């Protein structure tokens, strides 16, 4: 008996100590989505000699040093030129990127639009002085100073590339070929149990985009700005879609394997996944449906607590240089952000295939943007659902 009392006492002491630590530690301001302000962080004024290394968080395929494929290497040259050893960490999802950047151990990140605002307002990334990046002038104007990579005209990074979330299908099973997103939302779909969707709260925007075109009475004007009614409609649509889903995918190897085996025959994809699946011999095609699509535009951003800021700036300049940018765009399967890249791709049709210069095409693409309580479409009479609400809803949708 006495020894149990002793254990209880120890446990209580432990809890109290920790509670005290929690209360006394760094106090968070808890400003809440109501009083959003960008943390004041100074931007660099000059780039000096490299510190010897740079720690990067990136999407798979963005930082290749020849170890995946000998002909794909835009890192080794950079390392010998600048003396900055590149340490790369691949993130599987935007949410993982945000979590990694919060550790403060990384210098640069290739953030997509659904992560960038969270990083900016979270104070995890610093504003970027684009005067220090000589290649910035050649970036397509259509990508500069956008909602997801700048605040009040201040850029928070350099645009990397862009692409759409396409609809992929197996040509041998799915007939006729789909042209609309209705293929993945149709409750009477003949492909029930073999439909796949991207496993992330941001996928709610795909449903909103579809409703924008098919249910005009909801008045959705931006799939990332959803008030209660609009949000509920999108969630209901996705709950109904859950009946059709065989599995949700978030890492690309899983999707490639599922399409190869035929466990999935229809669903959202990225161009790079289609390329890999085709390379493995599976009969698949990907299309941009008539409703348009969600998409992404990535931005290289520098950490506010970077220990290697010079190497970080050198890297950002390097990765959007015409050669490196062309290399990534072609390997990953996306539209490059540097105008001069199009002349340097091995496949001369690359920029045409990915509509790099086709602003009309990208007008149909709604780039991932972090949903905020202040509606990003400019409405002030309603509150929109923020990303936390999207995340909780995503759990409910999957059931």
């Amino acid at each position, binding site marked *: 008996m006495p020894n149990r009392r002793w254990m209880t006492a120890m446990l209580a002491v432990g*809890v109290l100590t*920790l509670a005290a630590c929690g209360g006394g530690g760094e106090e968070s301001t808890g400003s809440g989505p109501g009083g959003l302000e960008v943390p004041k962080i100074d931007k660099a004024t000059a780039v000096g000699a490299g510190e010897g290394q740079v720690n990067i968080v990136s999407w798979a395929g963005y930082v290749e040093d020849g170890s995946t494929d000998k002909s794909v290497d835009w890192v080794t040259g950079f390392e010998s030129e600048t003396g900055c050893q590149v340490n790369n960490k691949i993130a599987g999802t935007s949410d993982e990127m945000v979590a990694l950047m919060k550790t403060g151990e990384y210098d640069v990140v290739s953030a997509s639009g659904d992560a960038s605002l969270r990083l900016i307002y979270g104070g995890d990334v610093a504003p970027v002085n684009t005067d220090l990046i000589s290649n910035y002038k050649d970036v397509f104007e259509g990508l500069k100073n956008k909602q997801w990579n700048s605040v009040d005209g201040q850029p928070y990074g350099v645009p990397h590339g862009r692409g759409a979330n396409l609809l992929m299908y197996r040509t041998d099973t799915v007939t006729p070929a789909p042209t609309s997103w209705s293929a993945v939302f149709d409750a009477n779909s003949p492909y029930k149990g073999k439909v796949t969707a991207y496993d992330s709260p941001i996928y709610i925007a795909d449903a909103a985009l579809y409703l924008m075109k098919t249910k005009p009475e909801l008045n959705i004007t931006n799939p990332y700005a959803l008030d209660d009614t609009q949000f509920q409609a999108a969630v209901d649509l996705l709950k109904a879609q859950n009946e059709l889903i065989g599995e949700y995918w978030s890492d690309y190897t899983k999707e490639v394997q599922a399409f190869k085996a035929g466990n999935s025959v229809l669903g959202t994809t990225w161009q790079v996944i289609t390329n890999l699946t085709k390379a493995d011999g599976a009969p698949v095609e990907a299309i941009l449906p008539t409703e348009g699509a969600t998409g992404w535009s990535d931005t290289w951003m520098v950490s506010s607590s970077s220990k290697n800021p010079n190497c970080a700036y050198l890297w950002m300049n390097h990765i959007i240089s015409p050669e490196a940018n062309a290399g990534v765009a072609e390997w990953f399967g996306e539209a490059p952000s540097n105008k001069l890249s199009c002349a340097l791709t091995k496949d001369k049709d690359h920029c045409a295939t990915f509509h790099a210069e086709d602003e009309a095409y990208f007008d149909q693409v709604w780039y991932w943007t972090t949903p905020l309580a202040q509606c990003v479409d400019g409405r002030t009479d309603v509150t929109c659902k923020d990303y936390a609400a999207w995340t*909780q809803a995503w759990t409910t949708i999957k059931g």
Partner: protein
Amino acid sequence: MSSLGSYLHRNPRLRLAGLLSAPLLWLVVAYLGALAVLLVSAFWTVNGFTGEVVREFSLQNFRTLVTEEVYRAVTLRSLGVAASVTAICVVIATPMAFFMAKVASAKYRHWLVIAILTPLWASYLVKAYAWRILLANGGPIDTLLGGPGNGPGYGLFATVLVLSYLWLPYMILPIYAGLERLPDSMLEASADLGARAGRTFRAVVLPILIPSVIAGSIFTFSLSLGDYITVQIVGGKTQMIGNLVYANIGAANNLPFAAAIATVPVVIMVIYLVAVRRSGALEEL
């Protein structure tokens, strides 16, 4: 140094304290400490947008857990999976362990134990992905059952199947260890005294078997309850408690809510352990 040694020699209580302080510190700091952090942070919240943890006491996480139906559904599903996996493991492991402990000769017994242990040397991930390929559309299991689509495919059933495969050694070993302690002479004595096989099983084997099975079930049950990787790989669209914890840390960066969800399996396991405490199973671990 030598004076310290002789001082300690004269003070046995101090000697004991010195000896025990390191493991005690380990237990308190690493184990209870981590549990305490979990409990405390479950009462915090997160600023929805910047992801900063707000260190103010709030019951909001638990309110969401209780009121939202999806969390109840996922908890029940996880319990169901853990119970099925445990039941399957018991059914397969008991005869295997009995054979190893009582039927096989000493030489073979040695090799059988190694055979049971070898799967534990391979990475969990490799085994789970291997099952993903086995269960794929048109894969080996489909072919065995007569063509693409005849197998279970990915989903709840596949999850139970793969988890049973993964945790089976954790059930076999405690049962084997228990049965091995049962002297053959006792079985012979029971027979000599006129008991038939059934009676011997009930009166001699079962009292040893039950605590061993419960000891094994603690492993299979808790490991299944907290699993999220197998579910992600072969579970199709199925979610379990582990997936919710993972999603709330990875996707939402909401550590407090993840901690609140993580208290659910802790509570379930505490209830389970208290329930089986009297069976003597905990001494078998």
